[in-house]
């Protein structure tokens, strides 16, 4: 067999491996209800519920942060994150959580926030001392 043929087979084999691995390692987006049925970690997209309690009390535990999120299907769930409260958390518009259900709580290993880019915030802050003429 020619060397180039062997090489070609090798390339194809690795390329297939890469694609399979990408697919195998990839996760799914789901709801909290999906998470209840799944043992594996998955991604849940939702919105922060600002009306409910957000707990981060570093004096008690610097690595415990809990809050409530409503997923895109409207189910609400308590989220527990081992770590500090991310910067800018309250202003996030959308949250992508990676993690799994433990009992009635969703334990997140990663939190990704989509903040309204402050540059797109279509509000102009007006000088409070502006003269009303």
């Amino acid at each position, binding site marked *: 067999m020619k060397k180039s043929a062997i090489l070609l087979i090798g390339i194809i084999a690795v390329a297939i491996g*890469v694609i399979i691995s990408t697919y195998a390692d990839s996760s799914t987006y789901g709801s909290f209800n999906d998470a209840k049925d799944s043992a594996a970690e998955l991604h849940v997209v939702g919105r922060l519920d600002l009306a409910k309690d957000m707990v981060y009390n570093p004096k008690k*535990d610097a690595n415990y942060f809990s809050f409530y999120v409503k997923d895109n299907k409207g189910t609400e769930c308590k989220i527990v994150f081992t770590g500090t409260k991310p910067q800018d958390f309250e202003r996030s518009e959308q949250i992508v959580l990676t993690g799994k259900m433990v009992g009635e709580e969703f334990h997140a290993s990663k939190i990704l926030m989509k903040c309204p880019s402050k540059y797109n915030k279509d509000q102009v802050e007006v*000088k409070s001392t502006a003269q009303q003429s």
Partner: protein
Amino acid sequence: MDTVFIGEHLWPGKLGQFFVVLSFAAALLATLSYYFETIKDKPDGSWLKIARSAYFVNLLAIIGIGTCLFYIIYNHLFEYHYAWAHSSKALPVYYIISCFWEGQEGSFWLWTFWQSVLGFVLVFRAKTWEPPVMAVVMLSQTFLASMLLGVEILGIRVGSSPFILLRDAVQAPIFARPDYLSMVADGNGLNPLLQNYWMVIHPPTLFLGFASMIVPFAYALAGLWQKRYTEWISVALPWALFAVMVLGAGIIMGSFWAYEALNFGGFWAWDPVENASLIPWITLIAGVHVLLAYKHSGQAYFTATFLTLVSFVLVLYASFLTRSGILGETSVHSFTDLGMFWQLLVYIGVFKLIAFILVIKRWKYMPFSVKEEETYSREFWLFVGAVVLGLACLQVLATTSIPVFNKVFGTEIAPPTQVIAHYNKWQLPFALVVAFISGFSQFLKYKKTDIRSFYVQLGRAALIAALLSGVAGYIAGIYTNPMFMLLMFSSIFSVVCNAGILYDAVLGKWKLAGSALAHIGFGFLLIGAMVAAATNKVISVNNSGIGFGQEFAKDNNPRENIILYLNEPIKMDKYTVTYLGDSVSGPNTLYRVNYKVIDPKTAKVTENFDLYPNAQQNVKMRQIIASPDTRHYLWKDIYTHVSSVPLKEEATHEAHEGHSEEEDFGKPTIYTVKLGDTIAVRDAKIVVKAIKKGVHINNMPLNSSDVSVALSLEVLSKAKTQVVDPVFVIKDGNVYDFGKTIEDLGLKLRFTNIKPQNNSLELTVLQRPPAEKKWIVLKAIVFPYINFLWGGTILMTIGFFLAILRRRKELKTA
């Protein structure tokens, strides 16, 4: 209805917009003229004259755009959206330049600026290559210029102009007022994370890298177009090396910025935006190697052409990923969509199509070699190395493109949950193979090699590398992991092989120095990245977390943050860490954190240093933006950032009249005491010592029937013992008392009554509520041997630079 607005400066914007349109028109004219010059049978230089003039007009217009934009930002003309959105009055002048690349428009400008600077070199240096190469470059300029247009053509908005007015960009009722500008107090300001000196130089370097990728691409296209199939390779080589050098330096600066200024605790996170810039870099690195293979042996022509072409297409793809908003949920720091999704796609599409059509049309003329490469030849292994790099790239590309895949096929696949592990699993073996090939191929010659001497050299280098990597693996503490050990071996092997070449270079074969240095740098880079990533250790681990339920302990979750109270030392790893207070510098609050190493035997302090991790507090947004501080040693770094701090209150509660002095004390407690009694309060003990009668009180003349009694109290606290004498007075039948305050204990003691009937005294104690103890939550990581990573990159950059010199010299002598 026309409102006349007061205070607006419209001319810089109008001038700027004029330059925008001019740059687009000139770029288009230059593209067409260069095209006609190229396809003319007998070029008489007439088209060339027009093309060059148009090119210079384009260059001047681009400089004009930059000047207008700078003027607007520098003078805080907040009637312009760009200035309002990306700058503020408080911004120091040297960061105004950073405002240019905070927004998409400014970063497009940067790209088009670099591209025209490169065009300048080509106009003067490219000679016969100028018309076809510049035709391609100016086509790309035309596309970039269109991104800044911001005009509507047939109902479709093309581009986004940096000169758009605030009142046009944002809808708000205040814009109905002619004097709205007097009410716009300040701009939104530059993202604090960009206010870092690395952010002043990282984007320009990165964009110079991106921009210079077009030159080898343009040469490859020109080569196919003009049927100068083999000629373009030697000319394009120095340019390809330049692009790789600059882009590589730009990427690593970004990585260093992330490490120094961001608090994600590392230097590479496989974020899609990072990957997007890495992908074309890897393909062009592979491209450079096969260009060399072809140059020296006539093999691998198609691979060389393909990789050169695809690298630039991938640059465009990278800008599509980061600018179209498609990454959305998968990346933290991509730009938001400015409505240029389709425009960006057309840009990619056009260049891809041109390249594809030319390759197909010229396919049968391409110099494919009939003969197979020898196994023991350098060109064969250059080719294999390029293939491995290509596969590594494919893997990064596949996972990074998941959101694109979702968009195209309407699927909802999420990226891997363990992203870093997913990439490392693949990239580690690829790196291992690449490093190994980059080592032994140094002993191979083009075309044919003496097998015996090859194996002798290989064996010797492998032996040295095996010994060294054993020692290095032991020191770095990675010897339990076979994959890490293999990578360590192959990286050191590459360093050893190339060090041999470098030795020869120093002895006289100077032209070899570039490649040898670059490969040594690459080997060190791999060692540094692997060891730092594999053995970095969070030392602020806090396993004493309490109170929130037991299920936490089971999860084995790393508890990586620790709370430090002011002046209360905590032991982390071998360090005794104390939070010593904070200070304010500009918008930043610096937290002084002291690290000490105390020798347990002699109790001597062997190391003692302060780190100042800082946080910008934004009171209005109730958020902090934390930046780390790092102690650099030769062999390790200690990296520290605050992850949470108490938020400062917006306005301090000002003391004003009408409040009684006792308001900030708590509720009074009344004790009935006798001489010799002791009362315990929060931080102290109070002993009732004695009574002094008839004390004299200032400004209060007393007559004989009045009573004035002082109570002598001894107050014992941890710090000291002090005596105070509150006084009780009855004057003209009215009761008064003069209490005493002890500020440092927050105590106020009042002698409020005497009850002669049972011989007891009444003592009223007031105490301030305990002051909030100052605290910070901290994360600290030790990164061992990370300097190999930075040092390796520097070596690699120097290596590329030497290689450029060598290949340029070859062009001149050839």
